[in-house]
């Protein structure tokens, strides 16, 4: 009985999570008038691919999509390399790494405090990064939260393994590469996912650091499409109001922007499960 209730609850809970997504997909496949009338719930009405053709034809979505893909690939690679290289030495004791606590403080202070929007922006501008892809990946190259997570993970790896490797003649680089990284795959997968999702979903830095809207990443671009227009403040004519209120087009944009990052999850999922098993055996 308890099981049944549990299943029912989880089933409904799952449905509740799926519902908004299915709704958006249905709206994106419906004709405009039906979605404006709010008739579409879970099944498209007047099914049409017109909305997708229209946004793909328009070009900016393609461009924004490519920017986001390159940003995510480049940004995640940089993030992971930096995270590993920072977490490994910091996971050592103070005897092994002289001045470890100083480094740790530098890292922590940078995590807890920041300079504020305008100084941050001006630094990036003065470095000449504005309007380039590097502005989106370099300022956040070292995700400190991830460093601390990975550092703690490294610390749980038995010291004996490292000592054995060193006795066999491995350098620190060698132990990192041959001992620590292979043992940390679940943690690395999780952090990669964090980093990739972060890069894919980030819109604010795109908005303030990319001046040319042809170089906007997809989430920043999406915002120009789906943001609720304050049409009273903006002078518009009838046609504009009509076009700007198009829910089907907006939904199609949302789908195009969301689906790629959703696809990443199943690929990384097996590492999570693997990770859980690893812990169980070790215990």
């Amino acid at each position, binding site marked *: 009985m308890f099981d049944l209730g549990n299943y029912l609850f989880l089933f409904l809970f799952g449905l509740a999570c799926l519902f908004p997504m299915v709704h958006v997909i249905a709206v994106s496949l419906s*004709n*405009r*008038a*039906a979605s*404006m*009338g*709010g*008739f579409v719930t879970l099944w498209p009405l007047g099914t049409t691919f017109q909305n997708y*053709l229209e946004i*793909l*034809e*328009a*070009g900016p979505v*393609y*461009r924004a999509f*490519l920017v986001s893909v390159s940003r995510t690939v480049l940004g995640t690679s940089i993030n992971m390399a930096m995270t590993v290289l920072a977490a490994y030495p910091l996971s050592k004791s103070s005897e092994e790494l002289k001045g470890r606590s100083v480094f740790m403080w530098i890292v922590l202070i940078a995590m807890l405090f920041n300079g504020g*929007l*305008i100084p941050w*922006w*001006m630094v990036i*501008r003065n470095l000449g990064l504005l309007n380039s892809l590097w502005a989106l990946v370099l300022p956040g190259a070292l995700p400190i939260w991830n460093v601390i997570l990975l550092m703690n993970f490294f610390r749980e790896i038995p010291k004996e393994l490292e000592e054995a490797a060193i006795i066999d003649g491995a350098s620190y680089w060698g132990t990192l590469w041959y001992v620590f990284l292979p043992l940390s795959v679940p943690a690395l997968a999780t952090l990669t996912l964090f980093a990739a999702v972060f890069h894919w979903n980030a819109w604010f830095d795109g*908005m*303030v650091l990319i*001046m*040319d*809207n*042809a170089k906007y990443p997809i989430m920043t671009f999406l*915002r*120009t*499409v789906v*943001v*609720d*227009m*304050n*049409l*009273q*403040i*903006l*002078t*518009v*004519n*009838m046609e*504009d*109001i*009509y*076009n*700007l*209120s198009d829910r089907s*087009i907006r939904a199609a944009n949302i789908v195009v922007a969301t689906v790629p990052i959703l696809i990443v999850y199943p690929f990384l999922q097996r590492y999570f499960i693997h990770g859980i098993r690893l812990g169980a055996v070790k215990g």
Partner: protein
Amino acid sequence: MPNGTHFSRRHFLKLSGTAGATALIAACGPGGAPEAESSAGESSDSTPQTATQSVPELLGADMPGSPNSPRGWTTVLPDLPEGLPPAPGQEPIEISTTRRVDAQTKFGEGDSMENNPWSRMIEKLFGVKLTVAWTWSSGDEATTKYNLAMASGDMPDYLETVPSNIFVKMVEANLLEDITDAYTMYASQRWQDTWAEYGELPWIFTTVDGRKYGLPRVEDLAHNDNILWYRQDWFDALSLDVPQTLEELHDTAVAIVEADIGKGAPGTTIGLLANKSFSATWFGSIDPIWAPHGVVPNHWTEVGGELVFDAVREEMQEPLALLNQWYQDGIFREDFFTINTSDSIQDVAASQCGIHYTPSWGAWLDTVRNDPETVWAFADNPAGPGGVRARHTENNFRSSPFCFRKGMEHVDQIFTITNFMHELTEDYDRRFHGWESHNYEWQEDGSVAATGISWHPWAIGPIGTRGSGMIDPRHVANLIDYQLEEWGKIPAEERDAYQTLSLEDPTGVSILGKQSRLFILETAEQGKITEYQSLPTPTMIERGSDLSKLVEENVLGMIIGEKPLSAFDEFVEQWTNLGGDLVTQEVNEWWAARS
């Protein structure tokens, strides 16, 4: 990118079912501009001489109009000032700008904000290259970016629609050019005469200490003025008459709710559209209910020589009681106070609502598409107590102006371009409708179809830009008049393709919108305008959002009965204590200084 756009162009052609002829025109349209300096078929000198080359030859594919197509037309460009177009080979002047860009900003293939038919025309005729420093799409994005520009001292030359609070800060920081003299020197006589007719109104939001720091954004007259839209088909079915008074409106709305004639689930018919923007708004407003009582909640009105804020006046109580009663009678959607303006379109599109106060676009096309039986009609707003008909109206010279960077070298160029665009767009005989294969496209049968791409967002203000910039606020009404009168007189078979496109209206919705616009202008005397016409005062900037939140909570609360009407005095006291007294004082200082 080339692969993607190539595919899309082909696909587009396939979609719109156009033939080879169109493809040819399209192919030499946007992409080949530099090569296609001379118009098709005529021989061109390899080193063109400006003196001998006509403007259409100079513009080539970037010449607006369609004289060579069947049922085409010719655009007549205004004369250029002396010394223009620039001599060949002369380096263009670069002017950096900020631009608003959103889903409606579209381009032909290969074009961009910096390179499109409009910008190419301007560069060839005036030797001015307009570059884009940065773009923004929503209000908060504009605020963020203008703040960054100010903080870094990195100001572009020409700033599009600077938000009021930023404008005030920029003037204080001495970042904007004083254009008082430039305006009298460079703006055309016609432009100056037109704005002079409106007295101080054009300069209210751009003047600081008697000096002008920007050009206003002009909105067409009666743009946001609401009238009564109703479903004629429902009225006929229920034998209802067009309501003449608010009482009759109440009874009519109740009859519609009781008949439950709407298309939604049983019991979902809405008598009168309303949303949480309880004052004036652009869709489903209720300001024509407030205004006949002498108040519009966010207006300032003169009472005994002093300005008072309408929301806290005694006169609010009567319409509040009325709206509370209407809410209890089920006229409004039960949860209207949670719905924003754009979402209330849904009730109209879904045929759940039969009456709404909306500007000229109230005959909503989606309703007709969902329910082909729909017949929209408009009527004068029902009269309130004492037969008064009144509604919110506004100053058509809006806040958030176009500004020039302090020390900007080419202020005159912006005026020269605007003078030209003013004549081009507001002399209707010039027949400027944009560019072939961009704004419209020829069909196989010799007619034209609109592409949904518009030149307006390509242009810089105050003409064009995102929205509908213009010099003369009467422009839209004049244009409608001109089209209905002049083109309407031409027999249908003799109209050229564009005239046919403009006057053809299978659903009737577009013509109805035009007629309603003219009707709203005829009843312009009903407009109630807020008498505080100036930049926000310091306390408004500081406490404004708290104050409007308080007003919103109380006005909506009293309409839905969550707060008793007897709490009105308490609300007034709270408003005063929260800073309303300071705002009133500042507003009256301005009022005293003005009169």
